[in-house]
């Protein structure tokens, strides 16, 4: 027990820990009173939590630059589900009609490759850290044999923390293919970067609750600009227009069927309401720290090339040793939790050249401290 209490948790890109105290307190008592269902029950407690759900929509809309459009935020159980809603919701979409950024997670890659077995998506050209090479892209796009209908961009890599240049890529793709829609995988990115969905004309943004937004697992959301652009992935009861057996176009009900995760979403709202102010460690500071770990010649470090494009995570590889062995040593000898492997992102590893080894990932949260990173540095020196 003592060991767990003293653990240094640096696996926040998987899911963040700790969570705001107010959220924990709410979850501990959520079922102390009778609780009904969002949109169905009318008792005071259910309505109180349902209000939080609506305030959460508004807050998420604000976070992605679509203030006042909370009804366009549809709740899901995670970002993966949100991404699948888009990829499976575009009528008769083929793999060859999809552009993928080079750092995509399997949440995007697998449903894209599963669209059909006859073709493959087009991977955008990249620099060594996964940043899309816009000059090459501009030359390549006019030569595509199939006009893309959807461009999926990973806003922040879960492998090296690269913040993608969404603005430039969208501008270039839209110039070549004005009808192409844009889906942003923002699972790692929010709230660390602001995604200006309205300004950039982004059609879909996939969001998760349990990472940087500090909510509980099982919470996510999808921003949908135009509800008619995709069909619902699931159909069922909405507590709304129950006589109508056809799909509704009304948002958010079109994409929210069945019983909503009222407790989870209320908890997520509590987390945002009590979000800690300011990052303890800036992304720029983390970039400098990560690069310094290469100084002894024992580790290769994988970050964004440009410090201004660094998110709150990076990867490293011990030279001459398996990353998994290092991760085990860090945990068992020093009580430091990291993540090792491919991080469900084989395309990203192919891009940065680590597809055979995987990497050891270090990821921080707003609660992380420099003391914890110094402890990691000492541990790396002694391993």
């Amino acid at each position, binding site marked *: 027990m003592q060991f767990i209490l003293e653990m240094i948790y640096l696996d926040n890109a998987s899911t963040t820990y700790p969570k705001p105290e107010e959220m924990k307190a709410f979850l501990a008592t959520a079922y102390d009173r009778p609780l009904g269902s969002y*949109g169905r029950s009318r008792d005071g407690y259910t309505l109180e939590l*349902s*209000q939080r759900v609506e305030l959460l929509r508004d807050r998420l809309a604000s976070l992605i630059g679509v203030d006042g459009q*909370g009804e366009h935020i549809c709740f899901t159980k995670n970002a993966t589900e949100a991404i699948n809603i888009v990829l499976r919701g575009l009528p008769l979409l083929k793999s060859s009609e999809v552009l993928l950024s080079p750092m995509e997670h399997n949440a995007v890659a697998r449903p894209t490759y599963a669209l059909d077995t006859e073709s493959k998506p087009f991977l955008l050209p990249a620099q060594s850290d996964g940043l899309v090479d816009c000059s090459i892209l501009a030359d390549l796009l006019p030569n595509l044999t199939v006009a893309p209908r959807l461009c999926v961009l990973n806003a922040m890599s879960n492998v090296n923390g690269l913040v993608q240049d969404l603005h430039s890529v969208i501008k270039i793709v839209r110039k070549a293919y004005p009808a192409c829609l844009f889906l942003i995988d923002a699972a790692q990115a929010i709230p660390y970067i602001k995604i200006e969905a309205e300004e950039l004309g982004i059609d879909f943004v996939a969001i998760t609750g349990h990472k940087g937004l500090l909510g509980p697992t099982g919470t996510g959301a999808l921003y949908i600009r135009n509800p008619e652009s995709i069909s619902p992935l699931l159909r069922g009861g909405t507590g709304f227009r129950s006589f109508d057996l056809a799909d509704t176009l009304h948002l958010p*009900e079109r994409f929210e069927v069945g019983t909503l995760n009222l407790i989870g979403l209320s908890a997520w709202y509590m987390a945002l309401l009590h979000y800690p102010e300011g990052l303890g460690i800036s992304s720029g500071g983390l970039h400098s720290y990560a690069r310094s770990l290469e100084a002894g010649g024992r580790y290769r470090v994988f970050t964004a090339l440009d410090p201004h494009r660094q998110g709150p995570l990076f990867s490293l590889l011990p030279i001459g040793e398996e990353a998994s062995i290092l991760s085990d040593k860090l945990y068992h000898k020093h009580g430091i939790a990291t993540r090792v492997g491919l991080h469900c992102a084989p395309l990203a590893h192919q891009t940065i050249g680590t597809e055979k080894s995987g990497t050891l990932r270090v990821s921080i949260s707003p609660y992380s401290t420099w003391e914890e990173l110094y402890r990691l540095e000492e541990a790396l020196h002694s391993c």
Partner: protein
Amino acid sequence: MLIQKMASFILLFASTRAFLRASRMVKGNGIPHQIYAAPPHLYPECGMCLLIPEECRVRVAEIFGESPDIMFVDQNFR
């Protein structure tokens, strides 16, 4: 205290979100109100409605303006 239905009007909503937002706004503006199950013969969209005293009608109309998700219905609705 129960609002007298004969001296009141109701607000019906196109969605749960619209109902919850309106509830928040009337509460925030100190307007007395009660939540009822929406009469299905009137409007079966959202399952709930707000019952509001008639003397607050002008103020409520000012607050909500011409929202497409909200419908005002006069008394004697049941």
